[in-house]
């Protein structure tokens, strides 16, 4: 019947305004407002990624050039070149070009010539001065630079010949992150098992908030503590050579990651149905056996997800690693220093010439980091979701 049809359509109303909210417009308004806020958060993430990627694009397309020695056009030849040629040579937009007088252009060209003349004699004939160090082969593969005995991975982005090899940074990032996880995962998961399965309710009510309070400590404070106290104590105990190294940074990083892993793992362990542990206990298993052999295996996907999210947190942590170690060495030895990607971005961005090759490469590193944390968070969320469904018997 047509009338009935109309009625059912109308009950949907415009954006659900008639669906139960007829009498409470404020609630409807609040609901839509919250929806908008959450939408803007998603939009923000997208915009940040687009911005970072846009700044980094010239590196991907090979449009940056760091070759030290370039052939300059002498200022006297201003008239011999077309406007388009000069714009390309001086890196000007047409509007900027139009604003500058002939004398200004000549001066701008003489700056280019001066810059070439300022190159020290030693570097003028250096074969390294001719190459564009932002090509991928120099950023990924080792190269035998002038003055080095063998091909090496070098990150030295400031100086005459700028060296942008990314390998030391990748190694440094992975090294500190993995040390942090090796330290944090057993402790955090152990604490989660204890709190969710073994502890008495009163103990649980004290221990849980205290561990979660760790995440409230600003990472700069953790870093400072590691720099001043932990570095000295660990060195006197373990007697290694370099006082500030990846090991100290990793342990300090662990403190930042423990609360993340703990609360997610604890959540996963608690959400295992009580019938599991009740059945185990009824069959004569001890509380320890129940926790270790029944509940933990059932919650394993959740614990895995906690680890992956902890990884995402650790790889993106800046301040702790920045304060404790920052030498860009290529070494997997945990007692050597390390330089992470986050450290590099934080320490170097302020001084990188706006829009220059160094600036672009730092943005590219940021984009890579963004992708890494995004993927690890995605995996973590996906696994948790599957795990919850499985426990609820939906699959």
């Amino acid at each position: 019947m047509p009338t009935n049809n109309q009625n059912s359509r109308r009950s949907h109303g415009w954006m659900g305004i008639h669906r139960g909210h007829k009498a409470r417009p404020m609630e409807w308004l609040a609901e839509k407002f919250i929806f908008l806020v959450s939408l803007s958060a998603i939009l923000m993430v997208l915009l940040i990624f687009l911005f970072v990627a846009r700044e980094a694009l010239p590196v991907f397309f090979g449009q940056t050039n760091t070759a030290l020695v370039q052939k300059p056009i002498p200022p006297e030849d201003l008239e011999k070149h077309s406007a388009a040629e000069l714009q390309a040579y001086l890196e000007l937009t047409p509007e900027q070009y139009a604003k500058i007088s002939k004398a200004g252009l000549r001066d701008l060209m003489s700056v280019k010539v001066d810059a070439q003349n300022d190159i020290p004699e030693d570097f003028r004939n250096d074969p390294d001065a001719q190459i564009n160090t932002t090509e991928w082969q120099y950023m990924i593969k080792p190269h035998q630079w002038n003055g080095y005995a063998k091909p090496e991975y070098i990150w030295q982005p400031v100086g005459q010949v700028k060296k942008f090899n990314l390998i030391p940074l990748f190694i440094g990032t992975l090294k500190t992150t993995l040390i942090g996880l090796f330290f944090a995962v057993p402790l955090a998961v152990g604490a989660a098992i204890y709190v969710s399965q073994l502890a008495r309710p009163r103990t649980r009510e004290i221990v849980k908030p205290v561990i979660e309070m760790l995440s409230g400590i600003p990472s700069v404070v953790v870093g400072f503590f590691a720099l001043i106290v932990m570095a000295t104590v660990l060195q006197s105990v373990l007697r290694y050579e370099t006082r500030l190294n990846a090991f100290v940074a990793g342990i300090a990083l662990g403190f930042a990651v423990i609360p993340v892993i703990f609360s997610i793992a604890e959540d996963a362990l608690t959400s295992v149905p009580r019938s599991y542990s009740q059945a185990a206990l009824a069959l004569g298993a001890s509380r320890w056996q129940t926790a270790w052999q029944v509940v933990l295996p059932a919650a394993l996907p959740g614990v895995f997800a906690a680890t992956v999210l902890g990884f995402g947190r650790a790889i993106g942590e800046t301040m702790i690693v920045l304060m404790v170690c920052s030498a860009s060495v290529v070494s997997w030895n945990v007692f050597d220093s390390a330089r992470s990607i986050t450290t590099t971005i934080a320490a170097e961005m302020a001084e990188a010439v706006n829009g220059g090759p160094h600036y672009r490469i730092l943005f590219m590193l940021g984009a890579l980091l963004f992708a890494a944390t995004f993927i690890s968070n995605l995996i973590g969320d996906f696994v948790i979701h599957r795990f919850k469904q499985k426990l609820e018997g939906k699959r």
Partner: protein
Amino acid sequence: MKQLVTLLAAATLATSALAGNITVKGSDTLVILAQKWAEVYMGQHADTKIQVTGGGTGTGFAALQNQTTDLCDASRKIKAAELQKCMVAFGGSRPTEYKVALDGLSVYVNPENPVKELTLDQLKSIFTGKIKNWKEVGGADAPITVYSRENSSGTYEFFKEHVLKGQDFAASAQTMPGTAAIVQAVVKDKNSIGYGGAAYGGGSKMLSVKKDENSAAIDPTEENVENGTYPIWRYLYVYVNPALDKDEVGTYLRWIRSDEGQKYVKDIGYYPLPKNLRSN
């Protein structure tokens, strides 16, 4: 839209000029001195307000070219790329460069280290990683731990160009976020070496530096830096858009470089300009 922004920028600039506001941004090395100058100057000229912020020399130049600061503090000379950007922003004219103070760079070691002096060549070999053990330069048989600044620092670049002659720092050099952090690390670490402003060295031992094998070892004292015998020193600069270098800003810049302004340089630990570079 663009015109609106320029209009707004022009309006803010105009008001700031009228109210006697001066913004200063740039080098972290210079920030304490710049604050001292601002403080004294504002005490004498109640109608002038000076805002000083740090952030690094590169940040200062970026602000200068975006015209969000009047003065840019710099612990190194402007680079060709920055000069070009500034010239484009200023419609073709170069930013004016003023030398405002001298800074001597000291080499710090742990007070327990028996080494007292090094030549420039030895310093270069140590910081590039060619010399790895203290016994090669007359010290104990122990590996050298090298501390350096972040490569964003003007001090880093100066040291790299003038002591390392443009060669790379050893990859194992630990980079620290500031001179105070280097001193702190050197004091804690027996076999370490670091560098930084002479003003910061408290607690560590400052080495005497020899130009070459045969010359005398020179301490980084005020006298030696001012007369140029100590080999590792540099100028500190202020850059300004020439269009703004008049009225209040011009007066302030002249005052900084006068005998009166240079009086305060020593309090901060840097060295005043030689007489012939001053404004009076």
